[in-house]
């Protein structure tokens, strides 16, 4: 076990979205002083533009960012010097959400409908795969970029379904606004399972020691939440009560608490290989990136 | 045919009382000429008759009436001291602007009747600018601009014509010719003319007034005999010019 260092390392971490229960372990680690104890000083930033974090990491403007596995694969295949540097949520959260009492009862009903999404770049692969058994594909639906307006665009009927909205969060948000949603889980419809939220760092300049310390603290945060979900919620909530203490976060917390990766520094390269090949198959990436550079060798 | 009466009119710009309790009649079908020192209030008086003194900082008293009981508005043609030509309109368009302003048509380019167009060309010929019909005002000389403004006023063909130094920027010969032309065209109309040239006033005026003092007062009218335009060789005219110049000089010594 590494001893706390006299000289704490500084890290800036940019989130992929505004703070929500998905970031539980990070916030808990921050609040309970795990970072300090592990010898890192972490500055957390929220993004205004969801596409900015990877670029900032690649340009060494921030050290770490929360990102999506599919997006990392794409970025790496575009030659950005990005690499996996830890896992936050190790299962897919994404899915296709429709209104429960809407006209869409099965994926077969999706033909010709519109889907709102917050761009991630693998929509085509996902939709093609999900719709294949029903005899149509991504080009048979209308995709609409709705930016930050995921749940509201569905509730106002501007779109018939959502992609890129999370089962633990947007589903609850719909519920809260008296619109029950129903999710078609993508990993149950042929899409290879993947890590929804990961940490990324610059593959060339990453400070592995700092990242190791960081992940240790995040690991302790995840452990704490797994062991004391109620207590974890309070810690999370109290970190910024005016922004975080609300019904949505409370409900989302419950649905998120058991999804955090308990081994953030562990990696299943096979999953990355499979998902990359999946993307390649649907033409979303030109070549499968080199896993050696795309996965930081932490230990 | 109707007289125009000014009843005890008065006007002040802020603290500056230009005139007060002034009475004046413009006789039907006659030329009334107004002389007076620079800044005494001639233009102001003319604007008052033209109904152009409704700005907020101007205090107005008295009334302007016509003795046929109808309002004066809509029956005047006004020529201002500045030529006020529209810079974007050709000479011809400037002359016919009144006609076009009055057509109630909603068209892109209210077509003028060919009769009106002929008349406009005729006016231009009379002021000697027929070959400038398609030119913009910015390409004219000072005197040419004034002649266009004059042509515009004459083109209006209204029963009452108010002119503020219409010949001021013209050379002596052109001036005489245009005076004759105006007399001819405006025969039978009621004309009020401001001028700085005593001879011009005597040549054209049925009644010549002199505005003077602060607040300004009108002197008694001088009424030169004979038909207008009078010949300048006329001996009586020269005598009257003496009287007039005396009056004008007297003013200076007063002021």
């Amino acid at each position: 076990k590494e001893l706390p260092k006299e000289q704490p390392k500084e890290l800036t971490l940019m989130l992929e979205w505004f703070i929500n229960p998905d970031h539980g372990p990070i916030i808990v680690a921050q609040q309970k002083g795990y970072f300090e104890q592990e010898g890192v000083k972490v500055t957390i930033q929220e993004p205004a533009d969801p596409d900015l974090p990877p670029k900032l990491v690649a340009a060494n403007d921030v050290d770490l960012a929360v990102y999506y596995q599919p997006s990392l694969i794409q970025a790496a295949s575009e030659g950005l010097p990005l690499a996996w540097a830890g896992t936050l949520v190790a299962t897919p959260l994404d899915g296709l959400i429709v209104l429960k009492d809407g006209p869409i009862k099965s994926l077969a009903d999706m033909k010709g409908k519109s889907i709102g999404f917050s761009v991630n770049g693998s929509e085509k692969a996902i939709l093609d795969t999900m719709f294949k058994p029903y005899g149509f594909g991504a080009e048979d639906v209308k995709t609409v970029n709705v930016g930050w307006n995921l749940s509201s665009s569905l509730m106002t009927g501007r779109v018939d379904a959502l992609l890129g909205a999370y089962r633990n969060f947007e589903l609850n948000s719909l519920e809260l606004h008296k619109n029950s949603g129903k999710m078609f889980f993508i990993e149950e419809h042929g899409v290879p399972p993947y890590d929804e939220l990961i940490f990324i760092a610059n593959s060339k300049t990453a400070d592995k020691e700092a990242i190791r310390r960081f992940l240790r603290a995040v690991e302790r945060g995840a452990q704490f939440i797994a062991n004391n979900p109620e207590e974890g919620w309070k810690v999370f909530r109290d970190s910024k009560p005016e922004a975080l203490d609300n019904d949505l976060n409370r409900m989302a917390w419950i649905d998120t608490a058991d999804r955090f990766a308990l081994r953030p520094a562990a990696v299943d390269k096979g999953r990355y290989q499979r998902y990359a090949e999946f993307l390649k198959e649907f033409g979303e990436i030109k070549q499968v990136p080199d896993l050696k550079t795309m996965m930081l060798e932490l230990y | 045919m109707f007289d125009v009466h000014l009843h005890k009119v008065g006007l002040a710009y802020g603290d500056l009382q230009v005139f007060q309790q002034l009475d004046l009649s413009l006789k039907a079908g006659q030329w009334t000429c107004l002389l007076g020192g620079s800044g005494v209030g001639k233009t102001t008086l003319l604007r008052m008759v033209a109904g152009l003194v409704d700005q907020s900082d101007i205090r107005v008293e008295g009334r302007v009436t016509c003795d046929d009981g109808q309002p004066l508005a809509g029956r005047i043609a006004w020529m201002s001291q500045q030529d006020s030509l529209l810079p974007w309109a050709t000479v011809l368009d400037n002359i016919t602007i009144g006609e076009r302003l009055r057509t109630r048509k909603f068209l892109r380019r209210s077509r003028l009747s060919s009769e009106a167009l002929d008349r406009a060309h005729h006016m231009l010929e009379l002021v000697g600018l027929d070959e400038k019909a398609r030119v913009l005002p910015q390409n004219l000389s000072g005197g040419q601009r004034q002649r266009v403004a004059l042509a515009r006023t004459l083109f209006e063909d209204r029963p009452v014509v108010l002119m503020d130094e219409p010949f001021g920027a013209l050379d002596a010969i052109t001036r005489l010719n245009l005076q004759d032309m105006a007399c001819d065209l405006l025969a039978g109309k009621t004309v009020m003319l401001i001028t700085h040239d005593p001879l011009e006033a005597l040549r054209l005026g049925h009644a010549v007034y002199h505005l003077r003092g602060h607040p300004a007062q009108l002197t008694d009218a001088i009424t030169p005999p004979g038909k207008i335009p009078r010949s300048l060789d006329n001996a009586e005219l020269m005598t009257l010019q003496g009287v007039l110049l005396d009056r004008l000089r007297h003013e200076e010594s007063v002021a």
Partner: protein
Amino acid sequence: MSKRFAVLKPLLVFIGILLLWQGLVVGLEVPSFIIPDPVSVFKRMVSDAGLLWEHALVTMAEMLMGLTLGVLFGVLMALTLVYFVSLRPWLLPLLLVTQAIPVFALAPVLMLWFGYGMASKVIMTVLIIFFPVATCCYDGLRQTHQGWLDLAQTMGGGSWAVLRLVRWPSALPALASGLRVAVVVAPIGAVVGEWVGSSAGLGYLMLQANARLWVDLMFAALTVLAICSVGLYYFTDLLLKRLIPWQTSHH
């Protein structure tokens, strides 16, 4: 000779910008995922010409519709302010409030109100364009030389005729400034609209490309957009010069 050179200059400037860009990218070693070099952008423009063209058409349509409506509303607002003097103190704050609320901030909500189709982008463009046009046109109309108005009054011109023959031409130079601003600002409206929610258009394409980190495609779209709006500007400028010939002499 000099006429032909006049057309050449913007082209030279354009080439200059490209060289500068290439120089900066190479010189400052800007990583290609932040700014790609012009050569690869150009390659993308050629290889994806069809795609770019298709999306450009959408954006252009939004821009043109927005411009038309925005200018129309702007001018109407200016006329209302000038002619209905008593309405002015009520309308002006209203107008201000509509502007003071940044459409950008409102964009997401606008999308919900008007849908993800063209309508919402046109509305955004209109909202952005409207104010410069209205302000400039209003100022122009207000500043009509009093002598001309007096003249028109004595001539017994109806207010429509006075507007058309006197006030309007005299306000044209000021309105022209407003239009120049509007034309240049119009793409912002359309693109932000697309950025916030859409399924077509250059803004949408840029967002897609950006998310996939196809930075060269993103800059290709940007270039096309820039070309569109520079073209629009020069076209408008030419048109305005035709419409206001009595101004050119002052140069």
